[in-house]
């Protein structure tokens, strides 16, 4: 598809506002919890396990039922008519604990009442008695017991151990990477509406309506066709609404079915953070062999992730961490091992980058340590180790295009790297309690779901006889601007002003069997599917117009709301009306499956990624060696979005992704107590970045003139996840400042770089 020379343009490339921008600023945009409440609505609340791992000996609902009164109800796992399993990859993964609780916060029962306050009181009144089992809470404990949610996996190329042993120099290290709560501003919410024919309609805040539909059907024992899931918009997703919403939609549906009334289940912030899975924390061990020029000869890496109590998407997340464990660097011999540790904590899940950020941070830590060991400039060392076209990655994908040398040059042009380095080093040698550092990090992020089957999408486009257009597709809008971008594609394909394209809520009864809006793939997949539908409509209209008015179909132009032939022109409404009268179909479906991709996991070969998204960042940090506080003083980012469909939206993704990554690596700390309780379950204790944390000097650019070399929709590139990893540069800058403070070449800085972690790295607090 898409020969750049013949591609339609307007309104592609225009920085149009988010499709709901006006509704957002007036407060009129409706999220699930804002919708008018249907008559008879019950509000649901969950009763949660206080135990990390225990048998449920008895569950007493009577005190709760007394509080609930005649109009309320309570359900447990025993009330599930279908299968108590919403596991996306393996199972069973129960929505309500059945006999055993496996983490603090696991739902054990659900209650519903007409008044939310009554339901809350009843949920607190649910009584259970437990017999405790041993709880395994963290990665070291699970590794010691070899307790995993899936078999450990290894990606091997060459003989890494031999290459390291034979290399002129060797270095190894270990460090810990923290998890991250999604902290979408709109928490998990679902409303279930029983339908007249025994079916159920679900309004959910989900990135994956098809999975919500499938899981609700499975839990209720209904055919999928009896369940519809609709989502107009989410208040943020970030991966936290890929699998998790199925739990809450299924519980709401279960209650609604038993009550015969609509039920809304909206988690408050504390329950949301206590119940739902997060970004995986990792423990990393690495060992590298290299020459005196710093070129890698061999790398061994061990990536151990806290998966939580069940698998969810952890096997695929650990795989992606392994794919990115060398980031953009070449090594002839590599062995990467991945472990998804089963622990008695929340079941960790997708989060922007899907394991990639942790793998990539491990690579950057290794490269940084080698640069320090050899006293080679870290940017120069990175250049020496970059993959070049023709290389194969450690998972066997042949590199075809490599934008990083160009990005390095463009980013570093004019930022005064050498002079700032010298000035910082001189200042760090002087007196005072502030130490500064520089950090540079490239990003090479593989685009495609690594489960090949998910790389498909559908769309449904209706042209009406007045020339207006209704667009449905399988992607969901979570703030990232997908609806706007796909609408721009449709407007360009049909040659209409963007205002002519109206967006319908994503719904499983319009476009079925969709993939999650995830893996940064939303506009690649859904944009291409929508274009396919438009091209079918355009082709039929062109055939009709050629027959009716003269000319050849391929010389008819659709632009500016008009259709023009060699000797005639009509506005689209007129032509659409003529075509309708001539019984020409004015609507169509579209489909897209990403070409070329395949991966043989057992043999570690293939082409799992259609292409890569690239970027790089340079950050300057300051730390206070008395308090451990840190600040990012300046950040320069350059990111490759291909030929942008909407540069304002893409820039927003780059900026927002970086700041979210900065939070992950600095202030956001998940603290569990020894009983497995998450103690940071509200913004009072869990600190995401604020307007004060944005670097005072923040310079963000998109790479210019960078059409995607592979044939994506209008040569754009995916942008959702990759910029998050630009924040690795901020962590490296803080680490650089810590090394200056410690006065040693090597420091161990665990992520997040909290004040405590920074003081430990500086040698001013004892190591853990």
């Amino acid at each position, binding site marked *: 598809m898409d020969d750049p020379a013949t591609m339609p343009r307007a309104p592609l490339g225009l*920085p149009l*506002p*988010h499709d*709901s*921008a*006006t*509704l*957002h*600023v*007036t*407060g*009129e*945009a*409706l*999220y699930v*919890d*804002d919708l008018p409440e249907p008559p008879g609505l019950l509000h649901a609340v969950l009763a949660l396990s206080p135990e990390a791992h225990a048998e449920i000996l008895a569950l007493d609902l009577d005190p709760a039922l007394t509080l609930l009164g005649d109009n309320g109800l309570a359900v447990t796992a025993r009330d599930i008519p279908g299968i108590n399993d919403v596991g996306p990859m393996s199972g069973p993964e129960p929505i309500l604990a059945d006999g055993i609780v496996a983490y603090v916060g696991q739902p054990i029962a659900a209650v519903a009442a007409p008044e939310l*306050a009554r339901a809350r009181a009843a949920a607190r009144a649910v009584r259970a008695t437990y017999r405790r089992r041993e709880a395994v809470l963290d990665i070291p404990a699970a590794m010691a017991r070899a307790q995993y949610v899936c078999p450990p996996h290894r990606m091997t190329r060459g003989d890494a151990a031999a290459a390291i042993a034979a290399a002129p120099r060797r270095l190894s290290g270990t460090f810990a990477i923290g998890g991250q709560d*999604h*902290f*979408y*501003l*709109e928490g998990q919410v679902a409303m279930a509406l029983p339908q007249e024919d025994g079916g159920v309609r679900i309004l959910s805040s989900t990135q994956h309506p098809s999975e919500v539909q499938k899981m609700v059907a499975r839990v209720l024992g209904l055919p999928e066709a009896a369940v519809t899931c609709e989502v107009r*918009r*989410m*208040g*943020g997703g*970030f991966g936290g609404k890929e699998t998790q919403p199925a739990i809450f939609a299924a519980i709401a549906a279960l209650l609604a079915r038993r009550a015969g009334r609509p039920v809304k289940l909206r988690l*408050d*912030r*504390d329950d949301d953070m206590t119940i739902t899975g997060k970004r995986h924390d990792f423990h990393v061990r690495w060992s590298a062999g290299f020459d005196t020029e710093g070129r890698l000869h061999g790398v061994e890496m061990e990536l151990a992730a806290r998966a939580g109590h069940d698998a969810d998407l952890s096997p695929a997340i650990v795989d992606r961490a392994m794919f990115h464990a060398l980031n953009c660097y070449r090594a002839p011999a590599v062995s990467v091992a991945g472990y998804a540790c089963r622990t008695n904590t929340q079941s960790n899940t997708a989060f922007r980058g899907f394991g990639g950020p942790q793998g990539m941070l491990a690579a950057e830590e290794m490269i940084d340590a080698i640069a320090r060991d050899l006293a080679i400039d870290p940017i120069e060392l990175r250049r020496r180790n970059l993959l070049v076209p023709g290389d194969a990655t450690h998972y066997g994908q042949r590199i075809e295009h490599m934008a990083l040398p160009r990005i390095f040059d463009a980013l570093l042009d004019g930022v005064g790297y050498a002079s700032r380095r010298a000035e910082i080093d001189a200042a760090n040698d002087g007196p005072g309690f502030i130490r500064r550092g520089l950090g540079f990090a490239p990003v090479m992020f593989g685009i495609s779901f690594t489960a090949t089957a998910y790389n498909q999408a559908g769309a449904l486009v209706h042209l009406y006889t007045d020339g207006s257009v209704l667009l449905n597709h399988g992607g969901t809008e*979570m*703030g*990232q*601007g997908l609806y706007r971008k796909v609408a721009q594609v449709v407007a360009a394909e049909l040659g209409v002003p963007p205002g002519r394209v109206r967006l319908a809520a994503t719904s499983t009864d319009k476009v079925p069997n969709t993939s999650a809006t995830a893996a940064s793939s939303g506009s690649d997949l859904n944009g291409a599917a929508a274009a396919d539908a438009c091209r079918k409509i355009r082709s039929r209209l062109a055939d009709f117009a050629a027959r009716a008015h003269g000319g050849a179909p391929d010389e008819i132009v659709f632009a500016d709301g008009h259709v023009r032939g060699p000797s005639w022109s009509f506005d689209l409404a007129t032509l659409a009306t003529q075509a309708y009268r001539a019984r020409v179909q004015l609507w169509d479906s579209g489909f897209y499956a990403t070409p070329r991709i395949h991966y043989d996991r057992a043999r570690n070969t293939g082409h799992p990624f259609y292409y890569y998204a690239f970027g790089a960042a340079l950050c300057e940090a300051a730390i206070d060696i008395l308090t451990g506080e840190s600040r990012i003083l300046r950040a320069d980012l350059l990111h490759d979005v291909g030929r942008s469909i909407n540069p*304002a*939206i893409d*820039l*927003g993704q780059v*900026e*927002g*992704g*970086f*700041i*979210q990554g900065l939070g992950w690596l600095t202030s956001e700390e998940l603290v569990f107590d020894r009983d497995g309780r998450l103690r940071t379950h*509200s*913004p*009072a204790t869990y600190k*995401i*970045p*604020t*307007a*004060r944390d*944005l670097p*005072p000097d*923040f310079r*963000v650019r998109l790479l210019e003139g960078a059409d995607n070399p592979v044939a994506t929709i209008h040569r754009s590139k995916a942008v959702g996840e990759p910029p998050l990893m630009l924040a690795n540069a901020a962590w490296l800058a803080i680490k650089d400042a810590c090394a200056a403070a410690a006065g040693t070449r090597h420091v161990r800085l665990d992520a997040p770089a909290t004040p405590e972690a920074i003081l430990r790295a500086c040698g001013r607090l004892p190591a853990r």
Partner: protein
Amino acid sequence: MSKIHVSAVVNGEPIEYLCDPAHTLLDVLRDQLGLTGSKEGCGSGDCGACSVTIDGRLTCACLVLGAEVDGMSIGTIEGLAQGDQLHPLQKKFVEMAALQCGVCTPGVLVAAKALLDRNPDPSETEVRYWLAGNLCRCTGYDKIIRAVLDVAADMKETAR
């Protein structure tokens, strides 16, 4: 439990409601008055998604009881635009893409207006510190800060 009668002014309109003594102002706005622009992001006064003004003072509606505002004047996001005419802050947020998912946006706008009402010419640091009580998980804040500063500059220009 007996309900409490409250008379207040919301976005310039006098209103009366009967309030459950346990309900917050946010509950009243959203569930009784149908003003769902104010959002519950945390329910503990930490995120700012429910920012409103009470007699001109910026407040989290989740931290105030509905019964407490008797005789007071409440400003919410729904009162920012004059009919179809968006407030300059609203226009600028749309133009400059200073929003993504939109859940924090109403609170940020109410807070930004409260800032400009008291200080029409804030420094960038003042804007950052003032808005630090409004969490945004999507944008990274840069466009929000730029938009507020731009509106302040436009207002200065107009006042001249």
